[in-house]
C-alpha cells in the first residue's frame, strides 16, 4: 500500500485524530506494557501523525499492547492511543492476506490450562 493510503487507512479504521494529542505523556505514564513497547504510546501517536506507519508496522511493540484501555480512559484529550495501535496491527494483518492458522497447527500452541477467552483473543489479535 502507498504511504498516504496507509496513513488514511490507519486514521479511518481507528477513528482517531492524532492531532488532538497535546503531548502530555499521560498514556506513556499509565501504560502497563511500557517496557515491552519500543515506541511508547505518546510516540506512537506522534509517529502516526507524522505518517511513519511502516516503521510502526515493523515494530514488535504493537503485539505487546494489552488493550487494557488505560491510555484511552486517562487521556485528557480523548486521543485513544490503543485504537491507533490496533489499527496499525490490523494494517499488518491485512497485508498478509489469508494466511490464517490451520486447525491442525493450533493444538501445539496451546496451554490446556488457559481459558478459551484468552486463546480466542490471542489468536484474533496476533495472527501475525
Amino acid at each position, binding site marked *: 500500500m502507498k504511504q498516504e493510503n496507509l496513513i488514511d487507512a490507519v486514521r479511518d479504521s481507528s477513528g482517531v485524530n492524532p492531532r488532538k494529542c497535546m*503531548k*502530555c*505523556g*499521560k498514556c*506513556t*505514564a*499509565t*501504560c502497563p506494557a511500557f517496557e515491552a513497547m519500543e515506541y*511508547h504510546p505518546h510516540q506512537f501517536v506522534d509517529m502516526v501523525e507524522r505518517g511513519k506507519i511502516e516503521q510502526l508496522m515493523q515494530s514488535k511493540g504493537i503485539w505487546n499492547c494489552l488493550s487494557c484501555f488505560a491510555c484511552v480512559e486517562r487521556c485528557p484529550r*480523548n486521543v485513544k492511543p490503543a485504537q491507533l495501535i490496533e489499527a496499525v496491527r490490523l494494517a499488518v494483518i491485512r497485508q498478509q492476506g489469508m494466511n490464517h492458522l490451520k486447525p491442525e497447527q493450533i493444538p501445539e500452541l496451546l496451554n490446556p490450562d488457559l481459558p478459551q477467552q484468552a486463546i480466542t483473543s490471542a489468536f484474533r489479535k496476533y495472527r501475525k
Partner: protein
Amino acid sequence: MMHRIGVFVCWCGSNIAATVDVKRVAEELGKQPGVVFATDYQYMCSQSGQELIQSAIKEHALTGVVICSCSPQMHETTFRRTVSKAGLNPYMLEIANIREQCSWIHKDKETGTEKAIVLGRAAIAKVQLNAPLKAGETPVTKRALVIGGGIAGIQTALDIAEAGYPVDIVESQPTIGGKMAQLDKTFPTLDCAACILTPRMVDANQQENITIYAYSEVEAVTGFVGNFHAKIRRKARYVDETKCTGCGLCTEKCPQKNVPNEFNLGMDHRRAVYIPFAQAVPKIATIDANYCKMLQEGKCGVCSKICAAGAIDYKQQDTFVEQDYGAIVVATGFRPISMEKFDEYAYSQSPDVVTSLEFERLMNAAGPTSGTLLRPSDGTHPKTLVFVQCVGSRCSDDGRGKPYCSKICCMYTAKHAMLCREKYPDTDVYVFYIDVRAPGKNFDEFYRRAAEEYGVHYIKGQVGKIVPEDGKLKVQASDLLANEQLHIDADMVILAAAIEPNPTARSLATMLTTPMDTNDFFTEAHPKLRPVESATAGIFLSGTCQGPKDIPETVSQASACAAKVMGLLHKDRLVGNPCIAQPDELMCNGCSSCEKVCPYGAITYADKEFRTFEGMKVRRVAQVNPAVCQGCGACTVACPSGAMDLKGFSNRQIMAEVDAICK
C-alpha cells in the same frame, strides 16, 4: 413620502472585500427603489469613512442610511452617532451584516457577493419603513451591589465607595475574604496573603460607604440598568450581629467539637459555633445549625450561657433586605474542581494525596498543622513530594475535566515547590508538567528560580497512576524528554486541580439574564474592548467569575470594573432604548393579553375617549411605560388585534425584510 436612501458598502480592508465584490454590491444596491446614492469605502468606521457618510447625507438630502459592514453589535452605536451628527435621526439607520454573516463564512466571491446584495436589499426594505425614534430617559439609582466578597469584590467595592457612592457587598460565607484568605504566600513575591488581604478586609468594614451583608445571598433581582431592585436573604446566624463582640469564647466552649472545618478544607475540626478565622470580617460568631445540639435536639445552650453580651439567639430567623441599585457587580469567584473523576491519582484512597489548596493550608501558620508540613496520614515529615500539574485542566470536552488552562497552577506550584525546598532542604521535590506557563511580570524568573536555585526537579511528563502501598505513594509517571517511565516512591502528592466557576454562578446568571460561556464563566461584552462589562447593561464582572485569573490580574480587573460602575453611577439620567412597544389605540380592545406576557409589568390600561361614528365612546386601551419596557416584543405577538407593535422592529419592517430575502 418616499425616502431618499444612501447605501455605504464597507470593505473592512480585505475582511469584506476579499470575498465580496463591494463595487458590485454598491452598484446593485444603487438600483434599488428609493436609493439615491450608493458607494463603497475601505473603512466606513474610520474618521474619513464617517465623514463620507455625513457629507453624503447633506449633499444628497438623505433621509435613510444603510451601511453594509460588520455586525451591528460591533459598530451600530458608532454609526448612529455618525448619522445623528449629520442631522439625521439615529434610528434612520440600518446595518447589513456582510462581514460576520457573509464575507467571513464564505470562500467563493460570487456566493459572497450575491448574499451581500440580498442582505443589503433586506436592510433597504427595512429602512424604508423606519421612523425617527427618540429615546426616553430614566434616573439612575446611585448605589452599587457587589455579589461576592473575595478579593475581587472587596477591591471593586472599595474603589466605588472611595469615589463616594454607597456599595453593598453580599457574601454567602460568614466572612468576606474568599479564597485568598486561605492562601499562605503569594507568587511571585512570596508575601503573605493574609498580610496583604486582611487590611483590605478591614478597610471594607470601616469604609462608611460600604455595607457588608455576610452570610447572605441574593434572592431575586428585577429591573434594568440604573434601576435594579434586589432582595437579599440574610441567613440566620443565631447570633445577634449587633451584640456579638467577636470575643470567641463560645467557639472555645461549644461541646460539639467534631465539625469538619471548611476553612481548612476539612483537614481539622471546628465547633458548631465558630468564627472562620482570626481576622474574619465581620468578626461575628455563627452557629452551624446542622451540628448545633440546641438547634437539632433542643438541649445544650452552653454558648448562650457563657456569652456575656447575650448575643446568642436560637430563635433567629432568616431576614430579608430589599434595596435599589444602579449597577450590579458579579464577583462570585471560583473553586477547585472535585477530584472524584481523577482517582487514578488515589485522592480518595490516601490522605497524603492532597489538592494544592489543601497544601496551601498545610503550609499555613494558621492551618491545621500550624504551618509545619506533616503528612496527613501519620503526621510524619514528608521527604519526597510529587506535584502534578494540569489535573483536570486542558482536557477535551468529555465531561472529565475542563477544556481551558486554569492559568494559576504553574505559578502556585512553583511557589509550593520553592517554599517546600526552602523550609525543608532535605526534601526531594518533583514537578510533573506538560508546559510551564509563566507569562506574567517576574513569573518566568520565579519559576526558573525554583528549578535553578532551589533544585526542584521539573520533569516534562505526566503522572499516570498512583498506588498507595506500605505508607508510600508509588507514583508511575512519564519523563518525556528522557523517554522513560519513572517510578517514584513519594510521601506526598499534590494535585494542581483545575478551577471552575462558583457553582451558584449559573443560577445567578439566570437571575441577572447575563450570558455565560459553556464553562459557566460569565461572558464579557467584548473579549478585548469591554472586558469587565457583561452583555447585559448595568451588570459588571469582577475577578475569576469571568475566567481564570491570578491575584494581580483579579485586582486590576476589579478596579477596572469599579471604574465602569462609577462611570454609570456618575450619570443622573440614562438614555433608554427607544425600540419599545407601542399600541395603536384605535385597534386596541383592552383584552389584557399583552399585559399578561410582559415580563416587566410595563403595560397598564387607561380609559380613553374615542370618536366613533356613533359619537364619543370611552374604551379601555393598553399603555406602555417607556421607562420600564425593554423592547422584547412578547406583547406584539400576544396581541390578537395586532394593535401592539415594536418600534424599530415593527411587523411591517420584519415582513419587508422577509419579502426582500425571499424575492
